[in-house]
């Protein structure tokens, strides 16, 4: 139920708060009223809604650990 997947925003229609999101080659319309996003942003999508914009910062500790630092 709380499964959510990441995708990349291809285009945005601000008037209706919808965006076209690319999930590894599959495109779907997603509601973006809960987040402040634009074209090119990565979002995490749950049940048709983007629930958060994904960031790569702060993830350093886990990537360092994965690399054995």
């Amino acid at each position, binding site marked *: *139920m*709380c*499964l*959510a997947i990441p995708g990349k925003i291809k285009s945005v229609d601000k008037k209706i708060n919808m965006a076209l999101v690319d999930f590894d080659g599959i495109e779907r*319309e997603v*509601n973006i*009223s*809960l*987040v402040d996003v634009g074209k090119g942003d990565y979002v*995490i999508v*749950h*049940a*048709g*809604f983007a*629930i*958060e914009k*994904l*960031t*790569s*910062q*702060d*993830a350093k500790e*886990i990537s360092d*650990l*994965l*690399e*054995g630092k």
Partner: protein
Amino acid sequence: MTSNIIKKIETLAKEIKREVVIMELCGTHTEAVAKNGIKKILPKNIRLLSGPGCPVCVTDQKDVDAVLTLALSGVPIACYGDVLKVPGNLVLKADPEKQKLSLNKARELGADVSAVYSTIDALKLQKEKPDLVFFGLGFETTTPMTADAIKKGLTVYSSHKLFLPAMQVLVDSPTLKIDGFLDPGHVSAMIGVEPYRKFKLAQVITGFTGEDVLFGIYMLLRQIAEGRKVVENEYTRCVKPKGNPVARKLVNDVFEAGDAFWRGLGTIPNSGLDIREKYAKYDAKVKYRDVLNSLDEKYEILNTSNGCICGAIMRGLKQPKDCQLFNKKCTSENPIGACMVSAEGACGIEVKYL
């Protein structure tokens, strides 16, 4: 790569020596644990338990029966696919086996039940079926979508719940001793980090890949070894410290907290979300009050126990394999308990990765 985290977990486990009990709170964590064989690679003194983080599993039979009553009275229903196979307590009087009905079975009896991926799809379906009722359930992650749809005119039967009151029940349990929680990642994306601090327990907000879960366990063990009890965030790429205030505002506008009954956990004060009076027009419990109170004579509600121990499993007191029905009378094809039905239920996951 991952072996490095595992080595660090092993070192910490040796340092702590005693048994450590960790509960993963989200059904999607349970799935990641099973899929990646994490229980098998953890040191012997680190025990992982599944918690009540499967919304379908904790939905009360009474709610399933109410939506069945609507469906069998001719009201078209839309729901998430996970809910279709969940049995309520409603049975067909003429059925000699008194098999408990699910929305899927109601469909076979002629009810109009559609599975939807989102409330956006439910709103589209409502254009063809103006009387449509959406069976809204789920925790903080899923509630904003229902709130958005109610504001756009979708009629909803709400069985939505708040997750933290259930955590409180686990923390207060005299029989369960938990050293740390892996807090649910996407619930946290909505509520942020702060609300968990009241539990005074080692906690790590954790994402859903195998690496996320291992890293979450590592961070918890580090806290336990150092004697710290704080809330850390492993899933920083998605969970912001303050969560998603826009989503919370939307939910707060449409819903208010009320007492709710959780399958397995009982009644938990202020853990349910009722539709506010200003949106009563879209509240199926109000709009269809008469229908809900007039079950057709062909059916009856049987509150008999069937031996299922889902409740104890969701409280971390039992494991799926402790149930005498597990993978015998209760299978993924013919589930008896909600934990077997849902893709996020502990029994369904256990059977999938046996």
